[in-house]
């Protein structure tokens, strides 16, 4: 599949708008088990990405992903900034404009490892990783209606963080009291996956 300038631009617009529209909800989730800034953090980062959409989209897919990652690192702050930043920086390392589903899945798997290393965290710790990991599974599975399946997987995965006890992130300071709330970073990951899947559908 060819990720041309039009798709690159559409990806930014879709993801950024989804995050910006969801910012208040993300902040509300973070107020419950964090410090109430995940929405503002993510909005700040993706507003910067959106503002640079044209310049970014002119770049090759790899450079584009790297630049998005760098923008997030420099704009988001908090825990989510280095983590989402690391994710995109890692994706940018290996993806070319013309990519197969397998290549994307491999790059995503490597990016997840990079996030784990940066966050000293793992699946089951009630973080964004708990969305990335099942989404990677769905991506590897491939097949018809993949976009829909990615969305459903992400949605379920975010919900599955509700009963978890947090091991990483601010929510871990709450111990047992972190149980019963959705992880804000899991929800923002779901929003990103959802927006990407929308663009995939539009291209299909």
């Amino acid at each position: 599949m060819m990720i041309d300038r039009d798709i690159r631009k559409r990806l930014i617009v879709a993801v950024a708008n989804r995050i910006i529209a969801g910012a208040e909800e993300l902040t509300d989730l973070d107020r419950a088990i964090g410090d109430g800034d995940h929405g503002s953090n993510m909005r700040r980062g993706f507003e910067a990405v959106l503002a640079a959409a044209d310049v970014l989209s002119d770049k090759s897919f790899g450079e584009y992903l790297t630049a998005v990652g760098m923008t997030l690192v420099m704009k988001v702050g908090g825990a989510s900034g280095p983590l989402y930043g690391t994710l995109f920086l890692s994706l940018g390392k290996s993806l070319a404009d013309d990519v197969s589903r397998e290549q994307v899945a491999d790059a995503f798997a490597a990016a997840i490892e990079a996030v784990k290393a940066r966050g000293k965290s793992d699946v089951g710790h009630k973080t964004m990783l708990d969305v990335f990991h099942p989404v990677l599974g769905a991506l590897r599975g491939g097949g018809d209606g993949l976009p829909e399946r990615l969305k459903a997987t992400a949605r379920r995965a975010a919900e599955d963080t509700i009963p978890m006890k947090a091991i990483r992130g601010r929510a871990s300071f709450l111990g047992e009291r972190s149980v019963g709330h959705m992880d804000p970073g899991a929800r923002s990951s779901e929003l990103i996956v959802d927006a990407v899947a929308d663009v995939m559908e539009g291209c299909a």
Partner: protein
Amino acid sequence: MKKLINAVEDVVKESLAGFCSAHSDIVRLGEAAPFVLRRHLKRGKVALVSGGGSGHEPLHGGFVGEGMLDAAVPGQVFTSPTPDLIIAAIEAADTGGGVLLIVKNYEGDVMNFDMAREMSGKSVATVITDDDVAVETSTYSTGRRGVAGTLIVEKILGAAAEQGRSLAELKALGDRVNAATRSIGIALTSCTVPAAGKPTFELGDDEMEVGVGIHGEPGRRRVKLRPAKEIAAEMVGAITADLGARARGDVILLINGFGGTPLSELYLMYNDVRHGVEAAGGTVARSLVGNFVTSLDMAGCSATVSLLDEELRRLWDAPVHTAALRWGI
């Protein structure tokens, strides 16, 4: 939300501008980026750089100056600063002796400071503070938070850096002071993050949170509001249990307000906590009471006990000249 602000997005910037102009004899605003830089840097000295989310004022900017920090990098409210800002502060503060980062143990801070260290290419070491006994330690978890005890680490390292100690010596000293320091906090209210516009959590009129951090986040458990003496006893109990036999010596006792509690209540708490510490066999050799490591307008306070030996006492007593802590100069 009732706050003395103009626009939510300008809060940190405008407050920083005010701070730097009110204390222009001690600090100046960074040029490459908005951070607080000591006005008179000392050539060749190891530079101490700290930072983290805003909302904890006077931490860290109020501790920049002779005998303490060389630079402080504020992020947005409760949000770690990004690596570009930290790198700019490292570059401005370094005068050839290397740079020691003092970072409170929050994943956001740790990761952003780590990225900055990796990207800076300078000789940089990091001391991570994690003095909050409210959080269970476990190698498996994030571990303890860095809270008010950070100010003690910064003060003592500041004095030691002024003596010309090396980066490795300072790193070891910082780790030692941090290991000798324990804190615990309680909150009577949450705080309101400007960008969120409403309190992070709601508490009933007769409730308090025990084991809170400094980000207006809920604590470990919610209990009925109790008299100061009982709160003090619980705080002392948590700290001394954790320190064990080591608590039976000279200590610094810091009663730190979270921003919304009047000084009179902090002194009242000091009175009760001090009695508790002394009943447990400790000797309060040095005291500090006030709003130093705050959580915006949260009502509540933390108690910090830090073990002293002769060396640490001398470093604590050494002259310091910052906006929020000043003596001997």
